[in-house]
């Protein structure tokens, strides 16, 4: 980014052509529209979550709360057990899955990186093949539920996204920048293969660890699919799946109430704003954290190959 900046700050001082001005105006506008399009939906949810239920029902969503109210948040935090519990589940799954995944992925990538390992290409292909062909959802489901007996087990959330060939290859691409001679000389000094991995390779591959770790962590944190398939105990719901359930059951309650003609009670039951507030409480940490995470993401993406 700096080179471009440099290039332009220099040329603009010399002379700014009319076409450049036109180009920049179009550019500013296009980028602005896209950015706005990405922000507005979240803004609308935030605004509605801070409105009174009555105003949302009467006027619909708006970008500035018509009647400011924190009652939806109060409603949620009156009995925060469910959400706190889901936060706990998601944190536990994300942390343990990411750490275990990073360990296994980096270790596997290291073996495949070792040029003196004869079968490295054969194994790499064995892993890669699973990206090209798979047994599909139903055999996978039957395997997990019937053979591994992991229904209503946290392992059903941790194990399936744990590693895939794409992450291993991505990590190996990061390792390829570590010179062979380092491994060679460590071997001459008498270091074992595992020790080379743990004490030489790992400390040198922090960009790779950060990138793959972020991929893994984001995947775990945002995962609702495996919970949908394998978890039906309420206490074990991860955060995103809890949100899914809340949104669905709120719609369901509203539907039942409107069908039975109990219109009055919908006004008292803050369903709409509670949905918004739940969405905000669940997504809040990501929205607060992502500008920091994004920096590493961009860095990792720029270093790691697109091709994989």
């Amino acid at each position, binding site marked *: 980014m700096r080179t471009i900046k440099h290039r*332009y700050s220099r040329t603009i001082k010399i002379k700014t052509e009319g076409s450049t001005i036109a180009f920049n105006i179009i550019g500013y506008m296009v980028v602005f529209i896209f950015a706005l399009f990405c922000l507005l939906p*979240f803004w609308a949810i935030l605004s509605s979550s801070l409105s009174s239920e009555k105003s949302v029902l009467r006027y619909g969503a708006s970008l500035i709360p018509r009647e400011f109210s924190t009652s939806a948040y109060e409603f949620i935090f009156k009995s925060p057990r469910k959400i706190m519990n889901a936060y706990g589940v998601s944190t536990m799954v994300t942390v343990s899955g990411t750490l275990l995944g990073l360990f296994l992925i980096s270790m596997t990538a290291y073996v495949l990186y070792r040029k003196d390992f004869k079968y490295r290409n054969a194994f790499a292909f064995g892993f890669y093949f699973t990206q090209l062909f798979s047994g*599909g959802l139903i055999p996978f489901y039957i395997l997990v539920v019937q053979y591994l007996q992991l229904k209503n087990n946290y392992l059903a959330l941790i194990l399936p996204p744990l590693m895939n060939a794409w992450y291993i290859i991505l990590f190996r691409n990061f390792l390829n920048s570590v010179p062979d001679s380092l491994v060679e000389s460590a071997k001459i000094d008498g270091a074992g293969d595992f020790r080379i991995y743990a004490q030489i390779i790992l400390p040198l591959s922090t960009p790779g660890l950060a990138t793959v770790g972020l991929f893994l962590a984001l995947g775990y944190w945002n995962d609702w699919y495996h919970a949908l398939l394998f978890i039906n105990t309420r206490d074990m719901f991860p955060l995103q799946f809890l949100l899914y359930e809340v949104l669905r059951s709120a719609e369901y309650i509203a539907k039942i109430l409107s069908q039975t003609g109990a219109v009055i009670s919908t006004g008292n039951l803050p369903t709409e704003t509670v949905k918004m507030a739940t969405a905000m409480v669940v997504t809040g940490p990501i*929205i607060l954290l992502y500008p920091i995470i*994004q920096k590493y993401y961009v860095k990792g993406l*720029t270093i790691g190959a697109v091709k994989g």
Partner: protein
Amino acid sequence: MVKRKRNGDKAALSATEFIAIKKKHGFLTELSKNRVLFIMLLPAILYFVVFKYLPMAGVYLAFTKFNYIGGIFGSPFVGMNNFRFLYISGALFNITKNTVLYNIAFLITGNIAQIMVAIFISEIPGRYYKKITQSLMFLPYFVSYVLVGFVVYNILNYETGLLNSILRSLGLEPVNMYGNVGAWKYILVLFNIWKGIGYGSVIYLAAIMGIDREMYEAARIDSANIFQQTRYITLPMLKPTFIILLLLQLGNILRGQFELFYQIIGANGTLYKATDIIDTYVFRALVNSFDVGMGTAVGLYQSFFGFVLIMSVNAIVKRVSPDYALF
């Protein structure tokens, strides 16, 4: 590179010696020599065998009429019956058509939007403007699809949606999107762009950063304006990245975006005809009807043709320009 290196070493040896060494260095020799490396590889091998290769054996179910009592290997074998039924009923055609057409639409619109944003971001001055807008565009990438589904609902629902509340405040008639089947094609495409714009534009931006600056200097000396520079330098230089991404996406054209469709459409039966893709069909076969044989058959069909597709795309690319090939 390994091969070249090894051959280089071996060049000094005579041919017979070379063969002798090669023979001696079999699997067992390698196993004892690199024992630790094998042990380090073991967890991954175990994981891939259990979670990836075992389900592949399960595709046998596609040729059975599954029942609980029989289980996987006790259920009656029916040959190609499941496939025949899917073909005759027209279900297979409809979901394949939807999956492929949606993916093509996603691919075209997504890449155009990402390239456009990447080019503008790289060219416009204003460091903070770029940083802030780029961050904002990355926001949808980081949220879960559950929230994406909710965002769509929150904008489009008839009673309290943002769109209708804007329309009402302007004195216009509100629209009922959830009753309008035709509109969902565009909604899905739009929100697919929305979700991927931040991530995709970063990849293209990285490619633009890699372009040699001297080319632009030279173009400016030849008095090419910024539009011409974009047209004749930036776009051609983005071609390799574009082709690789296109290939990856083309190979996956039979794999539907389950999360996007499931969260946005949900269980809205009226929209199925226009929005049912292979992945949602398989999911319903599992969850709603527990039609294991049929669902596995569709999954196998998807996997098999997806495999054929990616192999042929790769083979073609390998012949035309080997540098772009995946493997």
